[in-house]
């Protein structure tokens, strides 16, 4: 059985349903990310796991323990759940030294003095903070503060670590470094991570599985590779990575771009399920579109921009815009030139999705 289980978890704020019948199972030692635009319900879900929000429906279990249950009107307060948690805004206490910040969870548990000292030093050591133990966290940089928060969460050696956008207050280069540190700590201690972020690169790099959420509803739960390569729907496709969408009508084995152009139909085979509708959305990664001189879906280059390693093209196709990216070593047509597009790896979604 999975270690962390969310069953039909629902949360409403007034008339708004922030989280709608969510079902998640997370394994022991897994790194599980929740990804989505702001307001999608990911933070609310994490806060329900932490115990800062009660549920309006459903249950949350960790191992053998029940944490929250609407039906059984049971709710375990956050201080009794024994998780480690790291917040976006660091939330280190400015009136306590680095050492005392980390020792706090141990002192609250009324452990012996030597035990507290040993475990505090251990946690400080693992996060590289031993040399600044006596300092005030106010004197540390953003990365230093977040290490204090991490050490504090680590001190009690928790089974589950809750991370609420822990890296988004940091500089980009620091972010990458901390990502690896978190991953290393997880390998050493074997805790499960529930990770909330709106940064897809972060989620991809860290996670065993990613949950993509929108408007309180799960869109897809899968490995990073699958979420990127086989997005379950148009939302996931658009949310993860760069994307181009083309609204097309289907005529047998050919499609025609919808719009003012009246371009000729092009030979592209759409999935059978969508043929009946006669209309679909063709989705593609900008890097998976090739230019051809003759044939293909015809368009005109509106704008091309050199981004360094890649060249970014905006192609006007019958009034719709398609984004194409090419390596600088294999450049395509110039601005205002006509061109043809070939979709190397098209994805299909129904037009009203």
């Amino acid at each position, binding site marked *: 059985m999975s270690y962390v289980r969310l069953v039909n978890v629902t949360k409403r704020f007034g008339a708004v349903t922030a989280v709608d019948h969510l079902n998640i199972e997370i394994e022991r030692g897994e790194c599980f990310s929740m990804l989505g635009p702001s307001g999608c319900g990911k933070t609310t879900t994490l*806060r329900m796991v*932490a*115990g*800062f929000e009660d549920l309006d429906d459903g249950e949350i279990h960790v191992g053998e323990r029940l944490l929250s249950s609407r039906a059984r009107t049971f709710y375990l*307060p*956050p*201080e*009794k*759940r*024994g*998780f*480690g*948690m790291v*917040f*976006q*805004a*660091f*939330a*280190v*206490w*400015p*009136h306590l030294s680095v050492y005392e910040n980390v020792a*706090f*969870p141990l002192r*609250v*548990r009324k452990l012996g003095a030597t035990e507290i000292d040993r475990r505090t030093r251990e946690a400080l050591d693992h996060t590289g903070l031993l040399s600044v133990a006596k300092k005030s966290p*106010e004197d540390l940089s953003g990365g230093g503060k977040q290490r204090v*928060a991490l050490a*504090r*969460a680590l001190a*009690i050696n928790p089974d589950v670590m*809750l991370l609420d956008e822990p890296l988004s*207050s940091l500089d980009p280069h620091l972010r990458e470094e901390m990502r690896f540190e978190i991953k290393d700590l997880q390998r050493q201690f074997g805790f499960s991570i529930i990770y909330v972020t709106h940064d897809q690169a972060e989620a991809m790099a860290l996670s065993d599985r990613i949950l993509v959420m929108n408007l309180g509803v799960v869109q897809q739960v899968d490995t990073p590779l699958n979420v990127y390569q086989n997005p379950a729907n148009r939302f996931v496709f658009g949310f993860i990575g760069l994307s181009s969408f083309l609204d097309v009508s289907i005529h047998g084995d050919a499609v025609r771009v919808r719009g003012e152009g009246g371009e000729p139909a092009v030979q592209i085979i759409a999935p059978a399920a969508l043929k009946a509708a006669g209309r679909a959305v063709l989705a593609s990664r900008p890097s998976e579109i090739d230019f051809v001189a003759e044939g293909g879906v015809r368009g005109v280059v509106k704008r091309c921009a050199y981004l360094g390693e890649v060249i970014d093209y905006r192609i006007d196709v019958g009034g719709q815009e398609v984004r194409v990216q090419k390596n600088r070593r294999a450049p395509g047509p110039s601005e205002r030139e006509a061109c043809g597009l070939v979709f190397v790896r098209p994805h299909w979604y129904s037009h009203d999705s």
Partner: protein
Amino acid sequence: MRAATPSRGIGAAEVILGLSVGILVVVVAVPVLIIFFNAFWVNGQFNLADTLKALREPDTYRALLNSLFIASGVTVMSTIIGTFFAWLVTRTDLPFKPAMRVLFLVPFMLPSFIGALAWKMLLSPRAGYINRFLMDVVGLDGPVFDIYTFTGIMAVETMYLFPFVFIQVCGALERMDPTLEESARISGASLFTITRKITIPLVRPSILSGALLIMLYSMAHFGTVAVLGIEAGIFNIPTLIYEKIHQSAGSFNSIRTGTVLATVLVITAALIMFIQNKVLSRGRYQIIAGKSFRPVETKLRALRMPMLVFCIAYIGFTIVLPTVTIFMVGGLKTYGLPFTAENLTLANYRYILFDWKMTRDAIWNSVTLGLAAALITMFAGVMISYVIVKMKVRGKGLLEFLGMLPFSVPGSVIALGVMLAWSGKFGINIYNTVWIILVAYIARYMAFSLKANSAALEQVHDSLVEAARASGAGMGQALRDIVLPLVRPGMFAAFFLIFLPALRELTVSVLLYGPTTRKIGVAIYTLNEDGETVYSAALAGIALLIIVTAQTLIGRFTRARTMT
């Protein structure tokens, strides 16, 4: 085109700087210096022995000790009450929290000497209505509480001063990043532990700064001690200064004692300001942060309703009861009669408002003086703040130092200094005229104006003016079209911050009033001194009406402003 930086000679910048320094020197520095001079120099010679002798007089050091004692008691009580109510309205599930929050700020509006007057009517040992009721009707042997005591004075001051702490702590608790407490919770701490180990230490700087503000205010507070203390022979520094100046009709010795007392007061105030700055610069944590969820709310459970009742009772007892008493006593035919229909009349109010020149003048003086002081101080404050915050001109350091002065000079010191400076010493004698009160008010309230205006000016980034200059506007036009509109809210704030307190002010005007220059506060106070309790109460009632009306109008006005 002129060069952008006139580096030599006397330009507009130097003129403005000179004007700013001049205003502060005349209005603040001269009165303070003349007090120091009088305190330490005798017949043109520095004489510390005489100063110490004046301090060793029992009257003097007792007043000093009393001031300290009362201020300490008031500070402790206000801090406890203010912090407790602040926690109650921000961090618990108390019903009607927003309404309660507003009600706890009402004491800010009520002048404390009017409150003291009401409590005297209720709890003076023999004549107080509550004491008499308990003795005559219930049959107690003696008065249940004597208001003419240190406890009485401290209790009354606390009722009107605790909002200083309340408002500071409310703000700190509301702005505090809730994840600071949440991370303690997830660490396993109970709500009680979090409050003790995390929340209170984090808001301690705010509590302390509110407490020091109360300390400063109470040390230099005249009204309550004057109304309640004199009967039992309790004097603090401001009331003793008043006593010395008034009783002795300006004899050399009493003026000297007055200046020594004033010096002590200035030094104490400066010390408190110094500690407050230390507290603020060292301990003001960056506890405000990003995305905000609701803070942890303590469930009061079984205590929820009792706490609500307690709050309502507190407000009823400290706000409603004294206010009602003032209006009722103001309507009595003679003080001491029971409150029955045939004893109550509107004649007192009519007499005071329409027939008695003294009270009519007092109301008029209060309003005109308040308006004049607010307007002048507001404009002077804008100019001085502009030099301090925005201008790069040599000699600014002097202005910055002078600008600090108004913050640490208490009202009675200003009054005494102004009295010594402008009674003919420098060839100008405006004693016994409204002008001397106006000058004192400008000095007294300059601090408010500087604070509000420099806060507003600091918000106006230099690049905004630079953008206007780059668009082709001259400096004058940039000031008029860019800076002024952005600073206007600060100017309005300064105006109201001065107008309302000046309207009801007592400490300064009681030392400076002449036969025709009474203000409402002075008129109420002197009527009460003369035993005209009923008229005093009626005038106090009218003062309350004026204050509440002005406050409401201003509230409307500023809200309408911020909406647009």
